[in-house]
């Protein structure tokens, strides 16, 4: 469980005072280190020490399950007078706490203390008894903030890892759900849990996740984003190759499909791998609402994504290079709007896009209370007034607004952000070379997409490479009814590629 230490371990001393001093010294005399020295009724000659870090432990548990029994304990008859066996007695019959361990080395004990365990020293014993009494105050389980659904569970992960794992366990009640916890971060010692469904997930991928996690040597892991950048296949890409989710049901769904989930202590965002480009267009709700509506909405999402990437570029290309493509009346009305606009189309578009990006960022960062004020400034001052003042044309404002709205359709924020960056590149190319520029940029993006992999799985599968089995297509651009989704979606060697027997179509009920 614990990571093997590279440094040499300091053995504990038999002297209680020495041990307490060592711990105190290691923590630099931190004020939240609580040292409670006491004597027990059973062996009044020996001093006992209880050490813990305030705030990481549940004081009630300490008081009721540790201090009280310890102070008032009686040695069992066969141990009477053998105070050197006090430690054994403590462990076997006094400490009424589930997780108990013994530590022989100082570092071991200190490591556990930072995890919310307490140390019990007995004078004369070079061993420390450790008991898990963690129970720091945590935020209650809340509703999802970023991945909202209308129909479906309204539970989101919290910051505490144990709670998060339990949220998944409560969905997949199977012993096949295997959890492996790693300590990552030379300073933070953050717990990183890797979950997979045994017998379903590809063991090679699970091992690969372990291997990549083990290679991390950063001082601190504060969020799963740190992990993401270490374990993704390709760094120099704008496309996310790991799925993020704050929804236990999404993670559970991923596990059922044979993926691996990585949960990091301290963040409600879990990572899911391997993932494909198309996973980012699938909202959890797609699986909860009717398949026809879900399919329709999903196609809209794809269209909106393409729009959010290409629309301004297309507008620039059509209005400054290929005016012949516009219907005459539209051309004339656009031309009328542009009379007196001082900037070239490209500059106009970049200006408006930048304005929108600033507005958007401002909306995220500013205190909540001034939100409405900014929207008014944004909509009225920058939109309407800019048009009236003749600085930008009305058509451009419409295009930029629609592009912005299209971008919000994406269920995954990181994929949406990708299109926002790429959009600028394509706009510049469109401004230089018109449709040819767009063509080249899109081709470049497509080649890049085709070359990406996520934990060995081609990013664009099951479309490219595709054609292996028709069943894989049933949950890509549309979602077929649940009884028809027979195969797990990933294009990889799953141990168990089928999720149900085929031919389970419910018969039509006639009355």
């Amino acid at each position, binding site marked *: 469980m614990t990571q093997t230490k590279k440094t040499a371990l300091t053995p504990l001393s038999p002297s209680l005072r020495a041990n307490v001093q060592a711990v105190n010294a290691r923590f630099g005399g931190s004020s939240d280190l609580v040292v409670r020295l006491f004597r027990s009724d059973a062996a009044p000659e020996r001093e006992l020490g209880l050490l813990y870090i305030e705030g990481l432990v549940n004081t009630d548990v300490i008081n009721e399950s540790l201090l009280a029994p310890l102070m008032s304990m009686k040695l069992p008859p066969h141990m009477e007078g053998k105070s050197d066996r006090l430690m054994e007695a403590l462990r076997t019959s006094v400490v009424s706490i589930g997780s108990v361990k013994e530590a022989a080395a100082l570092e071991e004990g200190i490591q556990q203390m930072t995890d919310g365990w307490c140390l019990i020293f007995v004078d004369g014993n070079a061993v420390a008894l450790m008991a898990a009494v963690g129970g720091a105050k945590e935020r209650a389980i809340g509703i999802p903030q970023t991945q909202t659904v209308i129909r479906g569970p309204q539970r989101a992960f919290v910051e505490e890892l144990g709670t998060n794992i339990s949220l998944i366990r409560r969905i997949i009640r199977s012993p096949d759900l295997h959890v492996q916890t790693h300590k990552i971060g030379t300073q933070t010692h953050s717990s990183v849990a890797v979950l997979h469904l045994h017998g379903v997930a590809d063991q090679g991928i699970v091992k690969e996740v372990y291997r990549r996690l083990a290679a991390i040597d950063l001082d601190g892991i504060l969020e799963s984003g740190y992990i993401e950048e270490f374990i993704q296949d390709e760094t120099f890409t704008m496309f996310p190759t790991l799925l993020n989710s704050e929804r236990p049901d999404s993670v559970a769904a991923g596990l059922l499909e044979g993926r691996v989930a990585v949960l990091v202590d301290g963040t409600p965002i879990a990572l899911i791998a391997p993932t494909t480009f198309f996973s980012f267009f699938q909202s959890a709700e797609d699986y909860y609402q009717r398949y026809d509506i879900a399919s329709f909405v999903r196609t809209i999402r794809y269209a909106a994504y393409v729009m959010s990437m290409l629309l301004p570029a297309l507008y620039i290309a059509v209005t400054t290079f290929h005016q012949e493509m516009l219907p005459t009346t539209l051309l004339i009305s656009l031309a*009328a709007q*542009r009379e007196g606009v001082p900037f070239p189309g490209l500059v106009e578009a970049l200006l408006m896009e930048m304005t929108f990006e600033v507005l958007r960022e401002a909306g995220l960062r500013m205190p909540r209370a001034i939100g409405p004020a900014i929207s008014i400034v944004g909509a009225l001052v920058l939109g309407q007034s800019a048009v009236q003042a003749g600085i930008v044309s009305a058509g451009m404002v419409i295009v930029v607004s629609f592009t912005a709205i299209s971008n919000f359709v994406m269920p995954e924020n990181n994929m949406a952000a990708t299109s926002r960056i790429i959009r600028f590149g394509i706009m510049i190319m469109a401004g230089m070379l018109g449709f040819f520029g767009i063509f080249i940029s899109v081709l470049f993006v497509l080649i890049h997409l085709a070359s990406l992999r996520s934990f060995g799985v081609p990013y664009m599968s099951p479309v490219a490479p595709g054609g292996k089995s028709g069943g894989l297509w049933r949950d890509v651009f549309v979602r077929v009814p649940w009884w028809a989704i027979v195969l797990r979606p990933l294009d990889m060697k799953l141990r168990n590629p089928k999720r149900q027997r085929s031919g389970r179509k419910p018969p039509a009920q006639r009355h």
Partner: protein
Amino acid sequence: MKAIRLLLLGSLLLLQTGCWNRVELNDIAIISATGVDWENGKWVLTNQIVIPKAISGQAGGGRTAAVNVFSSTGDNFRIAISKASQESSRRLYFSHNQIVIIGQEAARKGVGPLLEAYLRNHDSRETVDVFLSKGTARLMLEQLIPLEQIPGAAIQRMIVNEEMSSSSYRQMTIHHVLMDLLGHTKATSIPGLALAGSGESTDRVDMLSQTSTPSKVRLSELGLVYGDKLVGWIGEEQSKGVMWLTNHVDKTTVAFACTAGGKGRQGSSARVLHSVTKVKPQQQDGKWVMKVNIEAQGTLLEYDCGGDLMKPEEIWEVERLVEERIASIVTDGWEVVRKHKVDVLGFGTLIYKHHPKTWKVIERNWKEEFPQTEIELNVNMKLSSTGMSGKSFKEAQKKPGL
């Protein structure tokens, strides 16, 4: 890999330096119509430029004309266009050009150079409609047309409307003209425009404030082109005959008289809703005979004759009258075309398609052989409905004793 990435980045930077083909919407002069005239040994090119602000600006249109017309001259088309920059602040933009009007003089001189310019240049589209003009093309372009703001577009809609409702003329695009003139008979027909009315030009916006404009542009007569030159005009009725013969009539209205032989006032009319003409060439005693078979179908619009239309025999009678009338229109058209010795009917092409070997022999003398050709006409008209009433009003009024 890295090198390629760097190169790509570098090329992006390079691209910043130039925008070769970029042209902003407020840097182009959108041309809605072009006119071609031949004056004093030079081509005169007239352009009708749309003023976007006058059409959909916030100030609102109405006060000023939505178009501006100006001409430039040169030895060929493209030089005339490039000379236009001497009096235009914006680049002339031809891709939205709706119509080309060729003045009579220019058409007699030859339309070849115009077609050549269209084939070679990418920005001039071949979907542009072509018209001939009785006066100068410039005069036609200067006319304002009620209801429409852009006269060029209005004329284009005029021919579409005409084709849809009476089929006396047909929409001829540069493409059609090219196909015809490059074909085996090297002949085509182009509808003409003329200024009808008092002759005073309707070229000021305030003239449109009256309920009736002093003059207006209208379609009139069909120009026959052989080689690339205008050789003659034929009238509206004859033009209709040509349309029947070339299977370009789809919807039209046929007026007919009550008596057989077409004598008397044509007080009744039938609407043709669909018609197909099939022509089959046949050689009979050294002569070519064109078997023309017209299948038309329509309804009765106006009926001025006697008889009870509730009886099938009466309907047959009416059908026969319509057929006769159509046949006479077609024959009239044929006679005129024959006189001009220009095979705008595509008879030669038909012979080529069906008898390629024989065509090789007669191809050279076709201009002489064409007028010798005879047509054998068979018209079949089907009235599918007599409208909402049975007997004619006149019949119904007849009361015994009055």
